[in-house]
């Protein structure tokens, strides 16, 4: 691919990101030049932002639905597209009539087209339950969309096969939705004015604003926890003071930024590390419990079991028997 072509894709991707769509990627070439390095950085940045969007979604549940975009394909028994929803056409930049009747492989990148063909053959043999598969779609302009796809098999009333639905869920930020919201708020405001003669501004819930400084401090707190898993967590009040903030902001900000509480985060990180050490190392559990910040072996085992469904001993036994 020439430099010009790759730069054109970079431009197109940045425009998409500007409009709130972070699920596009640029196809990588085999070159090792500055443009390729830029492409790799932009792809990684898009991945990070996409992830952050999804996260905000669950931290702020009453806002999610607006940001979800869905691609739906109905496929016939030959794997050809029977119908798509309009959003699919918008996302992939094809007209609906260009898509219907074609095989799904036309809209996948080379690599996953092969995967899909093999996969399709394999599910023709036995396709009872719904399935998930990773596929990468390709837009008309050549941008890529790596996607987790869900396959559901439709049955007719006599139990015969009646096509397959392929669903892909993505997230975006739509400025249009925001404007709609502002419009509705203004309308509500005007309505109140006419009814009562006075303006009553409703504060349903007021969000605390985190400044950049607050966010920086909370990030610091997270890094500190990750790097000091073995240390006992001081009382939150003290911990907040150490990083230069207060308990409320620490608690609230942590939840906003990472979608979890300080304690839960620390517990998860400790367990992640402990699991690796149990599975792949031969250190005694007492040492592992100690370096991962658990007070005692019994409490470590119990927490471990409640998280993973088996005790450290069971995991190590299973792993060492598999590898011997």
């Amino acid at each position: 691919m020439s430099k010009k072509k790759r730069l054109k894709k970079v431009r197109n991707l940045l425009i998409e990101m500007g409009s709130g769509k972070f699920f596009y990627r640029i196809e990588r070439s085999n070159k090792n030049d500055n443009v390729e390095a830029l492409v790799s950085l932009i792809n990684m940045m898009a991945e990070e932002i996409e992830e952050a969007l999804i996260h905000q979604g669950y931290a702020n549940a009453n806002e999610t639905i607006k940001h979800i975009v869905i691609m739906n394909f109905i496929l016939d028994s030959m794997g050809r597209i029977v119908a798509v929803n309009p959003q699919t056409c918008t996302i992939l930049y094809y007209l609906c009539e260009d898509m219907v009747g074609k095989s799904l492989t036309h809209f996948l990148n080379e690599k996953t087209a092969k995967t899909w063909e093999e996969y399709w053959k394999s599910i023709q043999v036995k396709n009872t339950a719904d399935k998930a598969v990773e596929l990468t779609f390709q837009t008309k302009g050549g941008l890529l969309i790596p996607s987790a796809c869900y396959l559901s098999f439709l049955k007719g009333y006599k139990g015969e096969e009646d096509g397959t639905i392929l669903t892909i869920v993505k997230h975006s930020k739509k400025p249009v939705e925001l404007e709609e919201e502002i419009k509705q708020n203004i309308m509500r405001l005007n309505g109140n004015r006419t009814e009562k003669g006075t303006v009553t501004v409703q504060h349903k819930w007021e969000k605390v604003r985190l400044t950049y400084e607050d966010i920086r401090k909370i990030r610091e707190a997270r890094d500190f926890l990750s790097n000091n898993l073995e240390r006992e967590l001081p009382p939150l009040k003290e911990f907040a003071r150490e990083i230069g903030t207060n308990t409320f902001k620490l608690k609230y900000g942590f939840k906003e930024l990472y979608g979890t509480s300080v304690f839960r985060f620390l517990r998860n990180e400790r367990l992640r590390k402990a699991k690796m050490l149990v599975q792949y190392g031969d250190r005694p559990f007492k040492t592992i419990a100690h370096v991962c910040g658990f007070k005692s072996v019994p409490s470590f085992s119990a927490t471990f079991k409640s998280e993973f469904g088996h005790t450290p001993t069971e995991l190590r036994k299973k792993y060492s028997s598999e590898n011997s």
Partner: protein
Amino acid sequence: MLNYIENNYATYQIVEGILNIRYHIGISINLPAAVKIVEDRLALQQGQSYPALCDMRGVREVNKEARDYLAMEGSVLLKAVAFVVEQPISEAISRFYQFANKPPIPTEAFYTTENAKKFLTDYC
């Protein structure tokens, strides 16, 4: 003791207290690859901690899931990591990884193996 392993993604060798990892040319790392990379490394280490010299000049791409896995699970039983990189791609990836994915162990990138080794001597 076994001190050399090779898989589809890299070769691993322990020399003079340093774990040398050399990624194959042109590889893309996704989550299953990252898991295999860490698993084989830990098999070779047999529970011992080492500083690692990681020649990633051959790496073309590391996706988000793999970066997250390598930063956390991938840091287990490593005292420090020195990347050997070259401009522009592997350098860009290593810088991004260091700043965005924040591995919890000392991690630095170098253009030469000598400088990378020098950095690791503090952790031997």
